[in-house]
């Protein structure tokens, strides 16, 4: 997309901070990484992470894997993004209040340093979230006006830059507003420092334990951002192509030992709100050239930016993740999923991201099983008399079938049959068998046709339950027929030997019903032929019985008549 503005992103920066922290600590906590090796190892790790991220983005784009994000549970995604929000907010606190005050909320200094950052962060977030004013005005205003007021206050109070830059350990200090003063940087310093002989391989490997989680989060977050951009700008573009573009720019970024980074929806939307253009690449080029000038010039702009501006921007970036995923997500997900999101974030806060990943995957699996097991896998149950095959039969046969189909039923199944849902079918069958026991033998079900045409699949446990169901019905004299079974399901049934136990598998429910009808007609024919053999015997028996019955009265009447005639 042409009107996209790209730049560094909070997620890679956050994970890189974890990598850098672990590189400094080293694999052995008692022996930290030597100071002379830290910088080179950090720079090499950054270059490697950028290459890996770029390669992965190109891989995802090339193999059209962007749609994979749709298969991830919403609770897992929101949980991870909530973790990012938590970490960004924590980083905002340390950036604004410094390492000494960030965990001392009982001190006045903590609030004195934090309040301006809260004003900036909450101000930008609120105006953007509730569409108050134009972002082209509100964002610069929330950054420039506090800075102007801040410098005016410093001037009025007579506080010098040196005093304001003081790390400020004492409560009465007027400093703590800036980072220590930096010298002018030169872009070629990174190449001077990148001496591979000074790399601590063990620390590098230890730091890389954070990279897999980072790759997953970056890919997911980028796809979500692309989806957000698409929705906000109402333009159509290929996610896979954007992934390839982002990957390529990451690979170019390695030349300057830059971090992994992606296009930025917030900047793209800011640009759109100013220019109302979805097609012009000029703002993106100007933005890049502006940063290019700074890159080659090396001016340490950070010396004049108060920490509360940096912290405020982190609060703004983090609030989006926190509010959207820990509050507004309750409107999109179920109560169980919402609880899982909070569980992931709390686990991350107390035990770390790796444990949060494990908790998230386990909870998502449990929620999936519970949700899916609640779905009705029995779509319908109807008597055979309500369903006829498409075969045209003569009126005599149709009449017979209408009578005999009372001993036939159809059960239609749906969704995926697995250990969580198959029990519904078993319970239903048990109830069916119990109700059959109360009926006369001649009215009990002779055939049960199972319609599989709307079943997505079956797992090993589901096949096992089916074997149990078929056995139960066989014992009670009911034959089971399957219709509309997908080839993959037939394969599973054959593998587990279930097919040996029932009467047949048919391509569709119609052919299965046709087969049952043929069985009924054949049975009726057999009964009729037996009846035809049996009827003359019955007739003879009736004659003999009548003779025996009426012989005595005849004899008696004959004797009486004879007496009368005398």
């Amino acid at each position: 997309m042409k009107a996209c503005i790209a730049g560094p992103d909070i997620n890679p920066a956050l994970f890189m901070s974890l990598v850098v922290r672990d590189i400094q600590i080293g694999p052995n906590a008692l022996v930290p990484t030597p100071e002379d090796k830290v910088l080179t190892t950090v720079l090499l790790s950054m270059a490697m992470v950028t290459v890996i991220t770029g390669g992965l983005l190109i891989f995802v784009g090339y193999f059209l894997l962007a749609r994979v994000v749709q298969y991830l549970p919403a609770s897992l995604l929101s949980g991870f993004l909530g973790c990012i929000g938590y970490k960004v907010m924590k980083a905002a606190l340390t950036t604004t209040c410094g390492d000494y005050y960030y965990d001392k909320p009982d001190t006045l200094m903590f609030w004195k340093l934090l309040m301006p950052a809260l004003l900036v962060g909450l101000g930008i977030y609120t105006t953007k979230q509730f569409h108050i004013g134009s972002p082209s005005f509100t964002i610069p205003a929330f950054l420039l006006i506090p800075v102007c007021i801040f410098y005016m206050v410093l001037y009025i109070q007579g506080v010098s830059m040196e005093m304001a830059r003081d790390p400020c350990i004492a409560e009465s200090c007027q400093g703590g507003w800036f980072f220590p003063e930096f010298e002018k940087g030169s872009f070629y310093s990174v190449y001077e420092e990148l001496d591979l002989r000074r790399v601590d391989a063990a620390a590098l490997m230890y730091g890389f334990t954070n990279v897999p989680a980072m790759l997953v989060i970056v890919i997911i977050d980028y796809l979500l951002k692309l989806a957000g951009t698409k929705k906000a700008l109402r333009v159509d573009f290929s996610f896979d192509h954007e992934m390839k573009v982002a990957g390529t720019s990451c690979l170019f970024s390695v030349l300057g030992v830059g971090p992994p980074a992606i296009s930025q929806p917030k900047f793209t939307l800011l640009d759109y709100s100013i220019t109302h253009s979805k097609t012009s690449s000029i703002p993106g080029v100007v933005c890049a050239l502006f940063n290019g000038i700074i890159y080659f010039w090396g001016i340490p702009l950070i010396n004049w930016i108060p920490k509360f501006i940096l912290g405020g921007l982190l609060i703004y970036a983090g609030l989006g993740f926190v509010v959207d995923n820990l509050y507004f997500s309750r409107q999109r997900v179920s109560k169980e999923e919402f609880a899982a999101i909070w569980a992931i974030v709390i686990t991350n806060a107390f035990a770390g991201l790796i444990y949060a990943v494990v908790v998230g995957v386990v909870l998502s699996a449990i929620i999936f099983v519970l949700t899916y097991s609640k779905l009705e896998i029995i779509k319908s149950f109807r008597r055979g008399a309500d369903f006829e095959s498409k075969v045209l039969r003569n009126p005599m046969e149709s009449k017979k079938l209408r009578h005999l189909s009372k001993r036939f039923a159809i059960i239609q199944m749906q969704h995926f049959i697995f250990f969580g849902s198959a029990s519904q079918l078993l319970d239903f069958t048990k109830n069916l068998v119990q109700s059959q026991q109360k009926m006369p033998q001649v009215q009990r079900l002779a055939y049960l046709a199972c319609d599989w045409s709307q079943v997505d699949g079956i797992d090993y446990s589901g096949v096992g339950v089916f074997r149990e169901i078929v056995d139960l019905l066989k014992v009670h004299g009911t034959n089971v027929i399957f219709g509309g079974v997908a080839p993959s399901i037939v394969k599973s049934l054959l593998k587990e030997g279930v097919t040996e136990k029932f009467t047949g598998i048919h391509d569709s429910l119609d052919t299965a019903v046709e087969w049952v009808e043929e069985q009924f007609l054949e049975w009726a024919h057999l009964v009729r032929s037996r009846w035809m053999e049996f009827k003359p015997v019955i007739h003879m028996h009736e004659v003999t019985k009548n003779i025996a019955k009426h012989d005595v009265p005849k004899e008696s009447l004959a004797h009486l008549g004879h007496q009368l005639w005398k």
Partner: protein
Amino acid sequence: MTMIVVQQPWLKTIFVARYSCEEIGTLVISGLINGLLMLIFCCVFATLIFKDVGENTVLKTFIPVGVLAQTFFALTGGL
């Protein structure tokens, strides 16, 4: 509407569409505002990454170069 007539062939590749002076001005201002904000974010991310642990002080002094490394991506990514 005033039309920009681009004489140089290489410039034509950048300004494919023809814009009025006002439009060009808006586009450039938008780019500058975004560039400045991006630079501030570069500072934020550099301070986040180059943070010393324990007694180390080596990374803190490297923050300006870290900011430049961040801006390098803004350059390559933007182009």
